């Protein structure tokens, strides 16, 4: 763990409880998640009770307390995307990566998450991969995207 990183995040913000969310956002950016011991340090340095830090971190969906994979796949399960078949996308990743939404693969390559609406309902179903948005997703497109990251070549089926 990099304490100099934390040092830069906290600089100029010590003893300012109102900076809590900004600090947590920066921590999330740097570490990819919010580690437990960092929360303790943040609480001490900002002068906020640990309970408060924990509460805030648990409250917002943008903060994760578990380490995340290299590639974060976010599937929108909002109303519009749901009726356009986001469940199929979830089934697809579940089958392909063998994990439930919210989990990370063992090799730390993928994390799959569900969100309630990304605000692009007309383009649904929407999938966000590492911050880049893909519209009108289909299970096929999603499978290819995952294959690409895994470095698998498309296997030509002999009967095609």
């Amino acid at each position, binding site marked *: 763990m990099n304490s100099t990183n934390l040092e830069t995040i906290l600089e100029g913000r010590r003893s300012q409880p109102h900076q809590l969310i900004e600090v947590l956002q920066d921590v999330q950016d740097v570490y990819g998640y919010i580690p*437990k011991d960092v929360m303790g340090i943040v609480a001490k340095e900002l002068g906020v*009770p*640990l*309970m*408060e*830090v*924990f*509460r805030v971190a*648990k*409250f917002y969906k943008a903060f994760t307390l578990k380490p995340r994979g290299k590639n974060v796949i976010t599937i929108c399960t909002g109303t519009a995307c749901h009726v356009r078949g986001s469940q199929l996308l979830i089934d697809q990743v579940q089958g392909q990566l063998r994990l439930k939404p919210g989990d990370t693969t063992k090799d730390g390559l993928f994390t799959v998450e569900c969100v309630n609406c990304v605000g692009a309902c007309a383009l649904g179903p929407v999938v966000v991969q590492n911050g880049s948005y893909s519209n009108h997703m289909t299970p096929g497109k999603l499978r290819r995207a995952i294959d690409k990251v895994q470095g698998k070549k498309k296997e030509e089926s002999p009967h095609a």
Partner: protein
Amino acid sequence: MIEEVTLTIDDVLVKAVKGISVLDAAVKSGICIPHLCHVPFLSDIGACRLCIVENVNNGKAKITTSCTLRVQEGMVIRANSEKVLKLRKNIAELLVAHAPNSRAIQDIAVRCGLKEVRYPFHNANCVLCGRCVRYCSEMWQGNAIGFVGRGKDRHVEYPFGKRPDTCKKCNSCVLYCPMSVTPCGEVMKTGEEHLCGKCDSQMAMAEKIPGACVWCETGKSFQCARYA
């Protein structure tokens, strides 16, 4: 200097110190408003909604929680109008249905004149009144417990699920929890929850003489032999 304001609660002129809540003013002058999450000398968060009143302004009545409403000069409050009583009864009904295993909550139901529960019972052990949380942080600066999660996942928890060093083991969280007052008779098992009804006489009174005192000690709402 202490400033005083005059307001009307249920057609009675009431004098109150500026800055206190309508609930406090009413209870101080002997007007009973049932309440659960309010604890004297702690901040109010309006979690239980039992203390609702009508705030009449320019002929328009607005329903709000009286514990979070500050007194103002010339305010007109209706604490026991038909509408308020009906709503309050419904809130009490939801509370008992959610967590029937507490004498405090059963007493509140009686006080609000509830005789039948139309909702399915859950044997929950927390009504999210936040009494423990506020007592811990405001009284003892303990900050050992707090609300975690949101929506239907909201619950009270230690940070990381472990008792922190800041906990003074004062036990106030248990003492101030309405769920720690066990029902008379025995604790109800899942599947056999019901509206207590052991205080039949009180219930009959609540029906025959509506608004009669059920010895809740002016809005304390439950007789748990402890202050607050």
